[in-house]
C-alpha cells in the first residue's frame, strides 16, 4: 500500500513523508549514538550539514553521480565524526553535550566563512539527482528513492544492533566501567559509535540536499540538533521503532495540528480566523511534555502499552 501512495496521494502529503524519511535516517543514526551507546550529542545538525554540503558541492562542482555523492557524504561525515569522537572520549553527560554543541558552532562558522567552497550565505543550488540517467524531478520519484534509502538504513541498523558491536554499545551505555573489565574496548567502540552515527547523518544530509534542491547554512542550526534529540527521546531512546515514531511525530504533528485546526474552523464557524500559528507550536511543546510525563519511554513506550492492552483485552485484571 505504501508503494502505491504516490499514484493517488496528495503531493503535499508525499512531500511531508519525504521529509520524514530524511528525518528517520538521521534520527536512527543519532539514536545509535545516544540511545544505544549513551553518548549525548548536540551536534547532529552539523553532521547533517556536512553530508548535505558534500553532496551539494560534489554534484554541482564536480558532477558526480548520485551513488558517489551519497557514499562521499556518508564517508566524509563519518571521518569528521571519527575526528570528533577521539577528543570527546573522556567526556560524559553535560560536558559531552557542550563539546558537541561547540562543534556545531564551529562548523557553522566554517560553512559561512569558507564561502568559496560552500557558497557561504548564498547557499548552494543542488542539481537534480538522477539514477543512472533517470532524473528524479518530482516529489513522487523522490519518494521511492527516499523510501528505499530509509528501509535500507533501518535494516542496516537493526542488524548492527544485533551484532557484537551493538551489544558493546549497549554495554557502554549501561555500565561502562564493568564493560571495560570484561574486555570491551571502550575507546574503540565509542569512536565507532560516533563514526557510524555520523555516517548516517551524512546520508540524511545528502538526501536533504537532493530533496530540497537548495541548501543554506541556516538550515542546520542548534535548533535542528535539539529537534533530533526530541525525536529520539520522545520516540523512545534505544529502540529503532522509537526513532521512526519520533521522527515522523516531530515532522508531521505540527502539520496535523494545523489541519485539525483548519478543519475545526470549518465545522465551528465561530473559530474562523482565530487560528494562530503560535498556538500550534505551543500545543506541540505541551504535547511533548505530556507524552513524556505520561510515559518516560516515549512513544515507543506508549506503543508497547497499547500492544499489551490489546493482547490482554478480553482479560481485564
Amino acid at each position, binding site marked *: 500500500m505504501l508503494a502505491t501512495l504516490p499514484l493517488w496521494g*496528495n503531493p503535499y502529503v508525499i512531500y511531508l513523508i519525504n521529509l520524514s524519511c530524511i528525518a528517520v535516517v538521521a534520527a536512527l543514526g543519532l539514536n545509535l549514538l545516544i540511545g544505544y551507546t549513551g553518548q549525548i550529542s548536540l551536534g547532529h545538525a552539523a553532521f547533517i550539514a556536512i553530508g548535505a554540503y558534500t553532496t551539494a558541492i560534489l554534484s554541482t562542482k564536480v558532477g558526480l553521480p548520485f551513488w558517489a555523492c551519497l557514499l562521499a557524504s556518508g564517508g566524509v561525515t563519518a571521518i569528521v565524526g571519527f575526528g570528533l569522537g577521539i577528543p570527546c572520549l573522556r567526556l560524559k553527560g553535560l560536558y559531552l553535550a557542550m563539546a558537541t554543541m561547540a562543534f556545531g558552532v564551529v562548523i557553522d562558522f566554517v560553512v559561512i566563512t569558507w564561502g568559496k567552497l560552500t557558497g557561504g*550565505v548564498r547557499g548552494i543550488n543542488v542539481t537534480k539527482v538522477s539514477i543512472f540517467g533517470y532524473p528524479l524531478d518530482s516529489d513522487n520519484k523522490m519518494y521511492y528513492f527516499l523510501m528505499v534509502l530509509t528501509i535500507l538504513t533501518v535494516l542496516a541498523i537493526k542488524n548492527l544492533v544485533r551484532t557484537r558491536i551493538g551489544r558493546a554499545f549497549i554495554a557502554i551505555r549501561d555500565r561502562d566501567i564493568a564493560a571495560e573489565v570484561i574486555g570491551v574496548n571502550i575507546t574503540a567502540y565509542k569512536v565507532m559509535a560516533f563514526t557510524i552515527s555520523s555516517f548516517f547523518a551524512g546520508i540524511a544530509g545528502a538526501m536533504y540536499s537532493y530533496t530540497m534542491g*537548495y541548501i543554506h547554512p*541556516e538550515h542546520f542550526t542548534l535548533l535542528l540538533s535539539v529537534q533530533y534529540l526530541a525525536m529520539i527521546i520522545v520516540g523512545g531512546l534505544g529502540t529503532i521503532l522509537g526513532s521512526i515514531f519520533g521522527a515522523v511525530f516531530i515532522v508531521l504533528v505540527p502539520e496535523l495540528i494545523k489541519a485539525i485546526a483548519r478543519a475545526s474552523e470549518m465545522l465551528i464557524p465561530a473559530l474562523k480566523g482565530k487560528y494562530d500559528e503560535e498556538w500550534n507550536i505551543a500545543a506541540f511543546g505541551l504535547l511533548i511534555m505530556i507524552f513524556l510525563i505520561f510515559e518516560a519511554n516515549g512513544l515507543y513506550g506508549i506503543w508497547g502499552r497499547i500492544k499489551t492492552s490489546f493482547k490482554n483485552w478480553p482479560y481485564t485484571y
Partner: protein
Amino acid sequence: MKGRGMWMGLLVFFLVCLLAIPCFGQRGVTKDTIKMGLILVKTGPVAALGLPNGTGMVDYLQYLNDTAGGVAGRKIEVIWEDDSFEAPKSVAALKKLITRDNVLTVITTGGSQQTMANLENINQYKLPNIPNALMKEFYDPFQPYIFAMGATYEAQFECIVDYIFNDLKEKNPRIGVVYEKKEYGIKGMEAVKKRAKAYGVDLVSELALPTGAVDASSQVLALMNDKVDYVVTCLLLPPTITYLKTAEKYNYWPKHVFGFNWATDDMIVKACGEAAKNYIGVNFVGAWWDESPGIKLVRQIAQKYNRTEIGLTSLYVNGIGVSMLFGEAFKRAGRDLTPDSLKAALETFKEFSTGGVFPPATYTSKSHAPHEMVKFFKADVANKRLVALTDWRKPKEMK
C-alpha cells in the same frame, strides 16, 4: 517487519484521510472570488519582519473588497501560511496551498531562502509572485514567474557609497563596515568594499556584529580606534539600535552612519533618539509620514483596520505596495484570470505608479528586474521619524 509495515500503512492512511485529496477545477478563481496564498513568517525570532508586511498585503486587498467590491466583480481572499522562516516549511506550505487550498497563486513565498527552495515549484505550478527578498538570482537569469521588486542589497549599498563620494563630495573617506554574518550582511559588506574600490578607496575596517550580540563595545571601540568617518551598517533593526546606542555611550560621532532597508524605519528614531542624529538610511518604500497620495492611503487603510500597533511601519508600507501591484494586475487581467493572464498583466506595467509607496514599476516579458531604486532618509529626532533626503535614485553607472 510485518508489524512495522502495517503500522506505517495505518499512519499514512489516517493522514491521507485527514488531509483531503487534491481539488480540481479552475485554479483559485470562481465567479465571485479570487483565492490568493501568502507564505510569510509569523512566528519565531524573525516574526517582526513578516507580520507587518503580511498584514499590509492582506489589508490592501481587503480594502479593495470593502471599497470597490473586489476587482472585476470578484472579492479577494487571502490564505496566510506561516513558515517560521524555515525553507522546508515554506515548501510544505506551498504544496498545501496549491494542492489543498487551490489558490490562484501566492503573493510571495517568503524570504530569499524560502523562495530559492521553492524555485522548482514556482515554475512547475506557474505561480506569479513577488518575493519578500532582494536577491539578484531572482531575476538574473530570467525567472518567468518571479517579479522582483525593491532594490537588491548590492544596489542599496552601491547607492550609499555613491552618496558619500558624489553628494558629500568626499575624496578619500575613511569608511568602516559593521555587518551581520547573514546573507544581507555579507553581501552588503562586499558590495561596499567593491564599490569603494571602484572609487579608488579601500575600507578601513570590516567588523562583524553577531546577530544576538548583547554588546557592541568592541566594534565601536575598534571603529573609533581606526578613526572611521563613515560607518556603513549592514544590520537588522535591533543590532543597529544596539550599535547606535553603544556609539552614543562612547561619544563616537562619525560624520554619518548609514543603514539599509531593514533598518530604515521610523522605529530607529523612536528607539534611539539622539543616538540616531547622524543616521542616514536607504529604503525602497516611502516613509510613513510622507505626504504623497499613496502613503496617505496607507495611513488611511491602517486607521480603517485599526492597526494601532504595527511595529515596523516601513514593512506595512511595503506590504501595501506589493498588494497594490497585484491589485492593478488583477484589474488589467480582467475577468479572464488565470496564472498566465496574471503574469501577462504584470508584464504590461510601464512606470506604474503607486503614488509614492514604491518607485514606478516596470516589467516586460523579457525582464522582471526590480527598479533598483532607493530614497535616502535622515532622522528627524525631534519628531521621532524619518524624513526624505533625496528622491528616487539608482546606483551610478560606473565606467
